[in-house]
Protein backbone atom coordinates (compact mmCIF):
# COMPACT_ATOMS: atom_id res chain seq x y z
CA UNK A 1 0.00 0.00 0.00
CA UNK A 2 1.39 3.44 -0.82
CA UNK A 3 1.97 5.76 2.14
CA UNK A 4 -1.04 7.95 2.98
CA UNK A 5 1.17 10.96 3.68
CA UNK A 6 4.40 11.57 1.86
CA UNK A 7 6.57 14.58 2.60
CA UNK A 8 9.12 15.40 -0.07
CA UNK A 9 11.83 17.88 0.93
CA UNK A 10 9.15 19.69 2.86
CA UNK A 11 10.61 23.02 3.97
CA UNK A 12 9.29 26.14 5.70
CA UNK A 13 11.25 29.30 6.23
CA UNK A 14 10.10 32.30 8.26
CA UNK A 15 12.31 35.02 6.86
CA UNK A 16 15.86 33.73 7.19
CA UNK A 17 14.94 31.18 9.82
CA UNK A 18 14.32 27.61 8.67
CA UNK A 19 11.64 26.05 10.86
CA UNK A 20 11.28 22.85 8.82
CA UNK A 21 14.28 21.74 6.83
CA UNK A 22 13.91 19.37 3.86
CA UNK A 23 11.77 16.84 5.62
CA UNK A 24 11.34 13.48 3.91
CA UNK A 25 8.93 11.29 5.78
CA UNK A 26 6.17 8.84 4.95
CA UNK A 27 3.19 7.90 7.05
CA UNK A 28 1.65 4.49 6.41
CA UNK A 29 -2.10 4.09 6.27
CA UNK A 30 -3.58 2.92 9.56
CA UNK A 31 -0.60 3.62 11.79
CA UNK A 32 -0.01 6.05 14.62
CA UNK A 33 3.11 7.96 13.74
CA UNK A 34 4.59 9.95 16.60
CA UNK A 35 6.50 13.08 15.68
CA UNK A 36 8.76 13.54 18.69
CA UNK A 37 10.93 16.55 19.33
CA UNK A 38 11.61 19.37 21.77
CA UNK A 39 9.70 22.66 21.57
CA UNK A 40 10.75 24.54 18.48
CA UNK A 41 11.70 21.39 16.55
CA UNK A 42 9.25 22.32 13.80
CA UNK A 43 6.50 19.81 14.52
CA UNK A 44 3.58 22.24 14.51
CA UNK A 45 4.87 23.97 11.39
CA UNK A 46 5.05 20.61 9.63
CA UNK A 47 1.50 19.73 10.61
CA UNK A 48 0.18 23.11 9.49
CA UNK A 49 1.69 22.54 6.04
CA UNK A 50 -0.03 19.16 5.81
CA UNK A 51 -3.42 20.68 6.70
CA UNK A 52 -2.71 23.35 4.03
CA UNK A 53 -3.00 26.13 6.60
CA UNK A 54 0.45 27.43 5.68
CA UNK A 55 2.32 26.95 2.44
CA UNK A 56 5.68 25.20 2.14
CA UNK A 57 8.59 27.41 1.09
CA UNK A 58 10.12 24.50 -0.75
CA UNK A 59 9.25 20.87 -1.40
CA UNK A 60 5.76 19.53 -0.92
CA UNK A 61 3.67 16.84 0.68
CA UNK A 62 1.10 14.41 -0.64
CA UNK A 63 -1.97 13.73 1.41
CA UNK A 64 -3.53 10.64 -0.09
CA UNK A 65 -3.13 11.29 -3.81
CA UNK A 66 -3.30 15.08 -3.43
CA UNK A 67 -0.38 17.47 -3.53
CA UNK A 68 -0.97 20.03 -0.76
CA UNK A 69 0.32 22.80 -3.03
CA UNK A 70 -1.77 21.83 -6.06
CA UNK A 71 -5.01 20.54 -4.57
CA UNK A 72 -5.29 21.85 -1.03
CA UNK A 73 -9.10 21.75 -1.04
CA UNK A 74 -9.09 18.04 -1.83
CA UNK A 75 -6.27 17.29 0.60
CA UNK A 76 -8.29 18.82 3.42
CA UNK A 77 -11.25 16.54 2.81
CA UNK A 78 -9.14 13.68 4.20
CA UNK A 79 -7.80 15.53 7.22
CA UNK A 80 -8.93 16.64 10.64
CA UNK A 81 -6.66 18.47 13.02
CA UNK A 82 -6.67 19.08 16.77
CA UNK A 83 -4.43 22.06 17.37
CA UNK A 84 -1.79 22.54 20.03
CA UNK A 85 -3.37 25.81 21.12
CA UNK A 86 -7.12 25.21 21.19
CA UNK A 87 -8.72 27.38 18.52
CA UNK A 88 -11.86 28.36 20.36
CA UNK A 89 -13.78 31.58 20.54
CA UNK A 90 -14.39 32.44 24.16
CA UNK A 91 -18.10 33.05 23.83
CA UNK A 92 -18.65 29.51 22.55
CA UNK A 93 -19.75 26.46 24.49
CA UNK A 94 -18.42 22.94 23.88
CA UNK A 95 -21.78 21.86 22.58
CA UNK A 96 -21.92 24.67 20.03
CA UNK A 97 -18.34 24.14 18.94
CA UNK A 98 -18.72 20.41 18.39
CA UNK A 99 -22.15 20.58 16.81
CA UNK A 100 -20.96 23.15 14.28
CA UNK A 101 -17.74 21.28 13.61
CA UNK A 102 -19.67 18.07 13.00
CA UNK A 103 -22.06 19.88 10.69
CA UNK A 104 -19.22 21.29 8.60
CA UNK A 105 -17.69 17.81 8.45
CA UNK A 106 -20.91 16.50 6.93
CA UNK A 107 -22.70 14.77 9.80
CA UNK A 108 -26.49 14.81 9.53
CA UNK A 109 -28.66 16.35 12.23
CA UNK A 110 -29.59 12.90 13.45
CA UNK A 111 -26.00 11.68 13.66
CA UNK A 112 -24.97 14.86 15.43
CA UNK A 113 -27.60 14.50 18.10
CA UNK A 114 -26.17 11.14 19.11
CA UNK A 115 -22.51 11.78 18.50
CA UNK A 116 -22.13 15.19 20.11
CA UNK A 117 -23.46 13.76 23.34
CA UNK A 118 -21.31 10.66 23.03
CA UNK A 119 -18.11 12.61 22.42
CA UNK A 120 -18.80 15.12 25.21
CA UNK A 121 -19.26 12.23 27.60
CA UNK A 122 -16.06 10.64 26.35
CA UNK A 123 -14.01 13.73 27.14
CA UNK A 124 -15.98 14.29 30.37
CA UNK A 125 -17.45 17.63 29.40
CA UNK A 126 -21.12 16.71 29.16
CA UNK A 127 -21.99 18.54 32.38
CA UNK A 128 -20.17 21.65 31.18
CA UNK A 129 -21.49 21.48 27.64
CA UNK A 130 -23.37 24.77 27.78
CA UNK A 131 -20.79 26.84 29.65
CA UNK A 132 -18.65 29.22 27.66
CA UNK A 133 -15.11 27.95 27.20
CA UNK A 134 -13.89 31.30 28.48
CA UNK A 135 -14.17 29.97 32.02
CA UNK A 136 -12.46 26.66 31.18
CA UNK A 137 -9.04 25.50 32.38
CA UNK A 138 -6.30 24.77 29.86
CA UNK A 139 -6.96 21.05 30.16
CA UNK A 140 -10.69 21.43 29.53
CA UNK A 141 -10.05 23.55 26.42
CA UNK A 142 -7.63 20.92 25.20
CA UNK A 143 -10.33 18.28 25.61
CA UNK A 144 -12.77 20.33 23.53
CA UNK A 145 -10.10 20.58 20.86
CA UNK A 146 -9.43 16.83 20.77
CA UNK A 147 -13.18 16.11 20.77
CA UNK A 148 -13.38 17.72 17.32
CA UNK A 149 -11.27 14.90 15.93
CA UNK A 150 -13.15 12.24 17.86
CA UNK A 151 -16.48 13.34 16.42
CA UNK A 152 -15.11 13.95 12.92
CA UNK A 153 -13.23 10.63 12.73
CA UNK A 154 -11.25 11.78 9.69
CA UNK A 155 -9.29 9.45 7.48
CA UNK A 156 -6.15 11.22 8.67
CA UNK A 157 -6.21 12.64 12.17
CA UNK A 158 -3.51 15.13 13.00
CA UNK A 159 -3.13 15.79 16.71
CA UNK A 160 -0.68 18.33 18.07
CA UNK A 161 0.34 17.63 21.67
CA UNK A 162 -3.12 16.21 22.40
CA UNK A 163 -2.62 15.61 26.10
CA UNK A 164 -0.57 18.64 27.13
CA UNK A 165 -2.02 20.15 30.32
CA UNK A 166 -4.20 17.09 30.87
CA UNK A 167 -3.80 14.95 34.01
CA UNK A 168 -2.48 11.42 33.78
CA UNK A 169 -5.88 9.72 33.98
CA UNK A 170 -7.16 12.00 31.25
CA UNK A 171 -4.07 11.26 29.15
CA UNK A 172 -4.75 7.52 29.29
CA UNK A 173 -8.37 8.07 28.29
CA UNK A 174 -7.32 10.10 25.28
CA UNK A 175 -4.62 7.64 24.28
CA UNK A 176 -7.20 4.88 24.33
CA UNK A 177 -9.59 6.93 22.24
CA UNK A 178 -6.86 7.60 19.71
CA UNK A 179 -6.04 3.90 19.57
CA UNK A 180 -9.71 3.13 18.95
CA UNK A 181 -9.71 5.69 16.15
CA UNK A 182 -6.71 4.00 14.58
CA UNK A 183 -8.27 0.55 15.00
CA UNK A 184 -11.27 1.82 13.04
CA UNK A 185 -8.91 2.55 10.16
CA UNK A 186 -7.84 6.16 10.63
CA UNK A 187 -4.23 7.14 10.31
CA UNK A 188 -2.92 9.26 13.17
CA UNK A 189 -0.09 11.72 13.05
CA UNK A 190 0.78 12.76 16.57
CA UNK A 191 3.16 15.56 17.49
CA UNK A 192 4.51 15.43 21.02
CA UNK A 193 7.42 16.40 23.19
CA UNK A 194 6.56 13.79 25.80
CA UNK A 195 8.76 10.72 25.58
CA UNK A 196 6.33 8.44 27.30
CA UNK A 197 3.44 9.47 25.09
CA UNK A 198 5.46 8.90 21.93
CA UNK A 199 6.68 5.55 23.23
CA UNK A 200 3.40 4.00 24.36
CA UNK A 201 1.14 5.36 21.65
CA UNK A 202 3.14 5.30 18.43
CA UNK A 203 3.54 2.44 16.02
CA UNK A 204 6.52 4.35 14.69
CA UNK A 205 8.33 7.40 15.99
CA UNK A 206 9.96 10.09 13.89
CA UNK A 207 12.40 12.20 15.87
CA UNK A 208 12.80 15.83 14.88
CA UNK A 209 15.31 18.43 15.95
CA UNK A 210 15.85 21.94 14.59
CA UNK A 211 13.56 21.32 11.64
CA UNK A 212 15.31 18.13 10.56
CA UNK A 213 14.28 14.51 10.76
CA UNK A 214 16.86 12.55 12.73
CA UNK A 215 15.44 9.04 12.46
CA UNK A 216 12.15 7.19 12.09
CA UNK A 217 11.34 3.65 13.19
CA UNK A 218 9.39 1.53 15.67
CA UNK A 219 10.10 2.67 19.24
CA UNK A 220 11.63 -0.67 20.20
CA UNK A 221 13.90 -0.77 17.20
CA UNK A 222 15.04 2.78 17.84
CA UNK A 223 15.93 1.96 21.42
CA UNK A 224 17.72 -1.24 20.39
CA UNK A 225 19.62 0.55 17.68
CA UNK A 226 21.71 2.84 19.79
CA UNK A 227 25.16 1.53 20.66
CA UNK A 228 25.55 0.86 24.38
CA UNK A 229 22.52 -1.22 25.12
CA UNK A 230 22.64 -0.45 28.87
CA UNK A 231 22.28 2.92 30.48
CA UNK A 232 23.79 3.75 33.85
CA UNK A 233 22.85 7.00 35.51
CA UNK A 234 25.31 8.20 38.13
CA UNK A 235 24.98 11.10 40.53
CA UNK A 236 28.20 12.38 42.11
CA UNK A 237 28.84 14.38 45.27
CA UNK A 238 30.85 16.96 43.33
CA UNK A 239 31.41 18.01 39.75
CA UNK A 240 33.49 15.89 37.43
CA UNK A 241 36.53 17.46 35.72
CA UNK A 242 37.02 17.38 31.98
CA UNK A 243 40.10 15.27 32.40
CA UNK A 244 38.25 12.69 34.48
CA UNK A 245 35.42 12.67 31.98
CA UNK A 246 37.85 11.91 29.17
CA UNK A 247 39.35 9.05 31.19
CA UNK A 248 35.88 7.67 31.93
CA UNK A 249 35.16 7.50 28.23
CA UNK A 250 38.37 5.47 27.76
CA UNK A 251 37.10 2.57 29.85
CA UNK A 252 36.48 -0.40 27.53
CA UNK A 253 32.83 -1.01 26.53
CA UNK A 254 31.80 2.46 27.61
CA UNK A 255 30.21 3.74 24.43
CA UNK A 256 29.24 7.25 25.37
CA UNK A 257 28.94 9.55 28.36
CA UNK A 258 26.37 12.28 28.54
CA UNK A 259 26.74 14.99 31.17
CA UNK A 260 23.24 15.95 32.23
CA UNK A 261 24.84 18.22 34.83
CA UNK A 262 28.48 18.36 35.87
CA UNK A 263 27.70 15.98 38.72
CA UNK A 264 25.13 13.87 36.94
CA UNK A 265 26.16 11.49 34.17
CA UNK A 266 24.47 9.10 31.84
CA UNK A 267 26.82 6.33 30.70
CA UNK A 268 25.93 4.19 27.73
CA UNK A 269 27.73 0.87 27.80
CA UNK A 270 27.62 -2.77 26.82
CA UNK A 271 27.66 -5.64 29.32
CA UNK A 272 27.00 -3.47 32.33
CA UNK A 273 27.50 -6.33 34.84
CA UNK A 274 31.18 -6.54 33.91
CA UNK A 275 31.91 -2.86 33.42
CA UNK A 276 30.11 -1.47 36.45
CA UNK A 277 32.74 -2.58 39.00
CA UNK A 278 35.40 -0.92 36.87
CA UNK A 279 33.42 2.27 36.81
CA UNK A 280 32.93 2.40 40.58
CA UNK A 281 36.61 1.67 41.00
CA UNK A 282 37.40 4.53 38.63
CA UNK A 283 35.34 7.02 40.61
CA UNK A 284 36.99 5.93 43.86
CA UNK A 285 40.42 6.45 42.32
CA UNK A 286 39.36 9.87 41.09
CA UNK A 287 38.09 10.68 44.59
CA UNK A 288 34.60 11.33 43.29
CA UNK A 289 32.02 10.11 45.75
CA UNK A 290 29.09 8.39 44.08
CA UNK A 291 25.75 9.47 45.49
CA UNK A 292 23.59 7.07 43.53
CA UNK A 293 23.70 4.59 40.68
CA UNK A 294 20.72 3.58 38.62
CA UNK A 295 20.60 1.18 35.72
CA UNK A 296 17.95 1.47 33.05
CA UNK A 297 16.94 0.39 29.61
CA UNK A 298 17.49 2.97 26.89
CA UNK A 299 14.51 5.26 26.32
CA UNK A 300 13.60 7.44 23.38
CA UNK A 301 15.41 10.21 25.24
CA UNK A 302 18.57 8.18 24.85
CA UNK A 303 17.86 7.80 21.16
CA UNK A 304 17.43 11.57 20.91
CA UNK A 305 20.64 12.07 22.89
CA UNK A 306 22.49 9.65 20.66
CA UNK A 307 21.74 11.84 17.67
CA UNK A 308 22.01 15.29 19.23
CA UNK A 309 24.22 14.96 22.30
CA UNK A 310 21.39 16.50 24.31
CA UNK A 311 18.44 15.20 26.27
CA UNK A 312 15.08 16.47 25.08
CA UNK A 313 14.81 18.56 28.23
CA UNK A 314 18.14 20.23 27.51
CA UNK A 315 17.08 20.84 23.93
CA UNK A 316 13.85 22.45 25.16
CA UNK A 317 15.83 24.88 27.25
CA UNK A 318 18.13 25.91 24.41
Amino acid at each position, binding site marked *: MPPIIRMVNLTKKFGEFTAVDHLNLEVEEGEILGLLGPNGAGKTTTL*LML*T*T*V*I*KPTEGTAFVGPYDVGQE*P*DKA*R*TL*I*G*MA*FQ*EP*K*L*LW*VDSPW*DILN*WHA*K*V*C*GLSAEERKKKVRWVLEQVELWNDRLKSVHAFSGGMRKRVEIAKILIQRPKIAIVDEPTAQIDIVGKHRIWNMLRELRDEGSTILLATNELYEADVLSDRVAIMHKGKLLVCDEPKKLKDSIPGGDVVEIALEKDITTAALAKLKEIPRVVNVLTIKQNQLKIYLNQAEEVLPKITEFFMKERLQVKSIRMSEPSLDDVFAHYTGLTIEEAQRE
Partner: protein
Amino acid sequence: MAIKPVLHIVQRDFKYFFRYKWWVAGMISMNLADLFIMAIVYTRMVNPDIITDYFVFFAPGLTITALFAAAFMIGREINMEVRREISHYMLSLPIKRWELAIGRVLAGGLRGIIYMAPLLVTTLIITYIYTSVFPHPLQFLTIVLALFLISIGTSGLSIALAVSTTSFEKYITARGVVYYVLFFCSTVFYPMNLIQTALPQLVLLAQYNPLSCGADLSRAFLLGNPPFSPFMLVDIALFALIFASLATFAYMKVTQK
Protein backbone atom coordinates in the same frame (compact mmCIF):
# COMPACT_ATOMS: atom_id res chain seq x y z
CA MET B 1 -20.97 25.60 -6.45
CA ALA B 2 -21.68 24.19 -3.06
CA ILE B 3 -24.16 26.24 -1.08
CA LYS B 4 -24.11 24.25 2.12
CA PRO B 5 -20.61 25.12 3.34
CA VAL B 6 -21.24 28.79 2.61
CA LEU B 7 -24.40 28.59 4.70
CA HIS B 8 -22.52 26.95 7.58
CA ILE B 9 -20.09 29.85 7.60
CA VAL B 10 -22.89 32.42 7.44
CA GLN B 11 -24.70 30.65 10.25
CA ARG B 12 -21.59 30.74 12.45
CA ASP B 13 -21.10 34.46 11.88
CA PHE B 14 -24.76 35.13 12.63
CA LYS B 15 -24.48 33.32 15.91
CA TYR B 16 -21.59 35.52 17.03
CA PHE B 17 -23.39 38.63 15.87
CA PHE B 18 -26.28 37.90 18.17
CA ARG B 19 -23.96 36.90 21.00
CA TYR B 20 -22.63 40.45 20.89
CA LYS B 21 -26.08 41.97 20.52
CA TRP B 22 -25.84 44.16 23.62
CA TRP B 23 -22.47 45.41 22.61
CA VAL B 24 -23.77 46.22 19.14
CA ALA B 25 -26.91 47.81 20.52
CA GLY B 26 -24.81 49.96 22.81
CA MET B 27 -22.55 50.99 19.98
CA ILE B 28 -25.39 51.84 17.65
CA SER B 29 -27.36 53.74 20.27
CA MET B 30 -24.26 55.79 20.99
CA ASN B 31 -24.03 56.55 17.29
CA LEU B 32 -27.71 57.32 17.18
CA ALA B 33 -27.52 59.64 20.16
CA ASP B 34 -24.66 61.51 18.52
CA LEU B 35 -26.58 61.72 15.32
CA PHE B 36 -29.84 62.84 16.85
CA ILE B 37 -28.01 65.59 18.66
CA MET B 38 -26.42 66.51 15.36
CA ALA B 39 -29.81 66.45 13.69
CA ILE B 40 -31.22 68.85 16.26
CA VAL B 41 -28.22 71.16 16.06
CA TYR B 42 -28.22 71.07 12.30
CA THR B 43 -31.97 71.62 12.03
CA ARG B 44 -31.45 74.83 13.99
CA MET B 45 -28.30 75.80 12.14
CA VAL B 46 -29.10 74.71 8.67
CA ASN B 47 -30.58 77.32 6.42
CA PRO B 48 -34.12 76.08 5.57
CA ASP B 49 -33.52 77.22 1.98
CA ILE B 50 -30.90 74.50 1.62
CA ILE B 51 -32.58 71.69 3.57
CA THR B 52 -36.18 72.27 4.44
CA ASP B 53 -36.58 69.67 7.16
CA TYR B 54 -33.30 68.25 8.28
CA PHE B 55 -34.78 65.41 10.30
CA VAL B 56 -36.63 63.94 7.35
CA PHE B 57 -33.64 64.50 5.14
CA PHE B 58 -31.46 62.79 7.67
CA ALA B 59 -33.51 59.63 8.34
CA PRO B 60 -32.32 57.73 5.21
CA GLY B 61 -28.77 58.72 6.11
CA LEU B 62 -29.23 57.21 9.53
CA THR B 63 -30.24 53.90 7.96
CA ILE B 64 -27.02 53.89 5.98
CA THR B 65 -25.01 54.65 9.11
CA ALA B 66 -26.45 51.70 11.02
CA LEU B 67 -26.07 49.44 8.03
CA PHE B 68 -22.46 50.45 7.63
CA ALA B 69 -21.59 50.02 11.30
CA ALA B 70 -23.17 46.57 11.52
CA ALA B 71 -21.71 45.31 8.25
CA PHE B 72 -18.30 46.62 9.27
CA MET B 73 -18.21 44.55 12.45
CA ILE B 74 -17.22 41.36 10.67
CA GLY B 75 -13.81 42.89 9.97
CA ARG B 76 -13.08 43.35 13.65
CA GLU B 77 -13.88 39.70 14.30
CA ILE B 78 -11.79 38.44 11.42
CA ASN B 79 -8.88 40.64 12.48
CA MET B 80 -9.08 39.07 15.94
CA GLU B 81 -9.26 35.56 14.46
CA VAL B 82 -6.17 36.14 12.37
CA ARG B 83 -4.24 37.58 15.32
CA ARG B 84 -5.22 34.73 17.64
CA GLU B 85 -4.67 32.21 14.83
CA ILE B 86 -8.23 30.96 15.12
CA SER B 87 -8.12 31.41 11.36
CA HIS B 88 -5.92 28.28 11.33
CA TYR B 89 -8.94 26.30 12.41
CA MET B 90 -11.15 27.82 9.73
CA LEU B 91 -8.50 27.14 7.11
CA SER B 92 -8.09 23.51 8.16
CA LEU B 93 -11.78 22.68 7.68
CA PRO B 94 -12.95 20.55 4.76
CA ILE B 95 -14.37 23.63 3.05
CA LYS B 96 -13.06 25.20 -0.13
CA ARG B 97 -11.20 28.43 0.44
CA TRP B 98 -13.48 30.55 -1.71
CA GLU B 99 -16.57 29.09 -0.01
CA LEU B 100 -15.10 30.21 3.28
CA ALA B 101 -14.29 33.68 1.96
CA ILE B 102 -17.65 34.21 0.26
CA GLY B 103 -19.42 32.96 3.37
CA ARG B 104 -17.68 35.57 5.49
CA VAL B 105 -18.44 38.44 3.08
CA LEU B 106 -22.06 37.36 2.73
CA ALA B 107 -22.48 36.98 6.48
CA GLY B 108 -21.15 40.49 7.06
CA GLY B 109 -23.55 41.85 4.45
CA LEU B 110 -26.59 40.05 5.81
CA ARG B 111 -25.76 41.17 9.32
CA GLY B 112 -25.83 44.75 8.11
CA ILE B 113 -29.24 44.26 6.50
CA ILE B 114 -30.78 42.58 9.50
CA TYR B 115 -29.50 45.22 11.85
CA MET B 116 -30.67 48.01 9.64
CA ALA B 117 -34.18 46.61 9.04
CA PRO B 118 -35.90 48.28 12.03
CA LEU B 119 -34.31 51.59 11.06
CA LEU B 120 -35.52 51.27 7.50
CA VAL B 121 -39.03 50.72 8.80
CA THR B 122 -38.69 53.79 11.04
CA THR B 123 -37.48 55.82 8.08
CA LEU B 124 -40.41 54.60 6.03
CA ILE B 125 -42.81 55.76 8.75
CA ILE B 126 -41.11 59.13 9.21
CA THR B 127 -41.13 59.86 5.49
CA TYR B 128 -44.73 58.67 5.17
CA ILE B 129 -45.81 61.07 7.90
CA TYR B 130 -43.98 63.80 6.03
CA THR B 131 -45.05 63.07 2.45
CA SER B 132 -48.23 60.97 2.94
CA VAL B 133 -47.14 58.59 0.15
CA PHE B 134 -45.59 55.18 0.33
CA PRO B 135 -43.04 54.25 -2.32
CA HIS B 136 -44.09 51.86 -5.07
CA PRO B 137 -43.21 48.24 -4.12
CA LEU B 138 -40.67 48.15 -6.93
CA GLN B 139 -39.08 51.30 -5.61
CA PHE B 140 -39.00 49.83 -2.14
CA LEU B 141 -37.35 46.66 -3.47
CA THR B 142 -34.79 48.78 -5.25
CA ILE B 143 -33.96 50.51 -1.96
CA VAL B 144 -33.55 47.15 -0.21
CA LEU B 145 -31.40 45.83 -3.03
CA ALA B 146 -29.21 48.95 -2.97
CA LEU B 147 -28.82 48.72 0.78
CA PHE B 148 -27.96 45.02 0.55
CA LEU B 149 -25.28 45.76 -2.04
CA ILE B 150 -23.84 48.54 0.12
CA SER B 151 -23.82 46.14 3.01
CA ILE B 152 -21.94 43.51 0.99
CA GLY B 153 -19.44 46.10 -0.18
CA THR B 154 -18.94 47.37 3.37
CA SER B 155 -18.46 43.86 4.69
CA GLY B 156 -15.91 43.26 1.93
CA LEU B 157 -14.14 46.52 2.68
CA SER B 158 -13.90 45.71 6.38
CA ILE B 159 -12.61 42.19 5.72
CA ALA B 160 -10.01 43.45 3.26
CA LEU B 161 -8.83 45.98 5.87
CA ALA B 162 -8.92 43.41 8.64
CA VAL B 163 -6.71 40.86 6.93
CA SER B 164 -4.24 43.38 5.58
CA THR B 165 -3.61 45.14 8.91
CA THR B 166 -1.48 43.08 11.27
CA SER B 167 -2.25 44.69 14.63
CA PHE B 168 -5.54 45.63 16.18
CA GLU B 169 -4.37 49.23 16.59
CA LYS B 170 -3.66 49.52 12.87
CA TYR B 171 -7.03 48.03 12.08
CA ILE B 172 -8.80 50.51 14.36
CA THR B 173 -6.87 53.39 12.82
CA ALA B 174 -7.67 52.26 9.29
CA ARG B 175 -11.30 51.82 10.25
CA GLY B 176 -11.38 55.34 11.68
CA VAL B 177 -9.96 56.81 8.49
CA VAL B 178 -12.42 54.89 6.32
CA TYR B 179 -15.37 55.95 8.48
CA TYR B 180 -14.27 59.54 8.42
CA VAL B 181 -13.61 59.78 4.71
CA LEU B 182 -16.70 57.86 3.65
CA PHE B 183 -19.10 59.75 5.87
CA PHE B 184 -17.53 63.19 5.66
CA CYS B 185 -17.30 63.16 1.87
CA SER B 186 -20.85 62.00 1.33
CA THR B 187 -24.42 63.18 1.23
CA VAL B 188 -25.34 60.99 4.20
CA PHE B 189 -25.45 63.98 6.56
CA TYR B 190 -25.88 66.92 4.20
CA PRO B 191 -27.03 67.42 0.63
CA MET B 192 -24.82 67.87 -2.39
CA ASN B 193 -25.52 71.61 -2.81
CA LEU B 194 -24.08 72.19 0.66
CA ILE B 195 -20.88 70.36 -0.30
CA GLN B 196 -20.77 72.35 -3.53
CA THR B 197 -20.76 75.64 -1.68
CA ALA B 198 -18.69 74.67 1.37
CA LEU B 199 -16.10 72.23 0.04
CA PRO B 200 -16.19 72.09 -3.77
CA GLN B 201 -13.00 69.98 -3.81
CA LEU B 202 -14.96 67.06 -2.34
CA VAL B 203 -17.83 67.07 -4.82
CA LEU B 204 -16.38 64.37 -7.06
CA LEU B 205 -15.63 62.07 -4.14
CA ALA B 206 -19.09 62.65 -2.68
CA GLN B 207 -20.71 61.88 -6.03
CA TYR B 208 -18.98 58.54 -6.46
CA ASN B 209 -19.22 57.61 -2.79
CA PRO B 210 -21.59 54.61 -2.60
CA LEU B 211 -22.91 55.86 0.73
CA SER B 212 -24.05 59.07 -1.01
CA CYS B 213 -25.66 57.04 -3.74
CA GLY B 214 -27.41 54.84 -1.17
CA ALA B 215 -28.71 57.74 0.87
CA ASP B 216 -29.80 59.68 -2.21
CA LEU B 217 -31.42 56.65 -3.81
CA SER B 218 -33.54 56.18 -0.68
CA ARG B 219 -34.37 59.89 -0.66
CA ALA B 220 -35.28 59.79 -4.34
CA PHE B 221 -37.90 57.12 -3.76
CA LEU B 222 -39.04 58.20 -0.29
CA LEU B 223 -38.93 61.99 -0.60
CA GLY B 224 -38.79 62.61 -4.33
CA ASN B 225 -35.60 64.61 -4.06
CA PRO B 226 -32.83 64.41 -5.29
CA PRO B 227 -34.07 62.71 -8.48
CA PHE B 228 -33.27 59.03 -9.03
CA SER B 229 -30.58 58.24 -11.55
CA PRO B 230 -29.47 54.74 -12.64
CA PHE B 231 -25.91 55.87 -11.97
CA MET B 232 -26.62 55.45 -8.26
CA LEU B 233 -27.38 51.75 -8.64
CA VAL B 234 -24.43 51.16 -10.96
CA ASP B 235 -22.09 52.90 -8.53
CA ILE B 236 -23.36 50.83 -5.61
CA ALA B 237 -23.20 47.58 -7.58
CA LEU B 238 -19.61 48.31 -8.56
CA PHE B 239 -18.71 49.07 -4.96
CA ALA B 240 -20.18 45.73 -3.87
CA LEU B 241 -18.51 43.82 -6.67
CA ILE B 242 -15.09 45.37 -6.19
CA PHE B 243 -14.89 45.04 -2.43
CA ALA B 244 -16.50 41.61 -2.24
CA SER B 245 -13.91 40.36 -4.74
CA LEU B 246 -11.07 42.17 -3.02
CA ALA B 247 -12.07 40.73 0.36
CA THR B 248 -12.36 37.22 -1.04
CA PHE B 249 -8.98 37.50 -2.65
CA ALA B 250 -7.31 39.07 0.40
CA TYR B 251 -8.90 36.58 2.78
CA MET B 252 -7.74 33.66 0.67
CA LYS B 253 -4.19 34.94 0.27
CA VAL B 254 -3.37 36.64 3.54
CA THR B 255 -4.74 34.11 5.96
CA GLN B 256 -2.46 31.41 4.57
CA LYS B 257 0.94 33.11 4.52
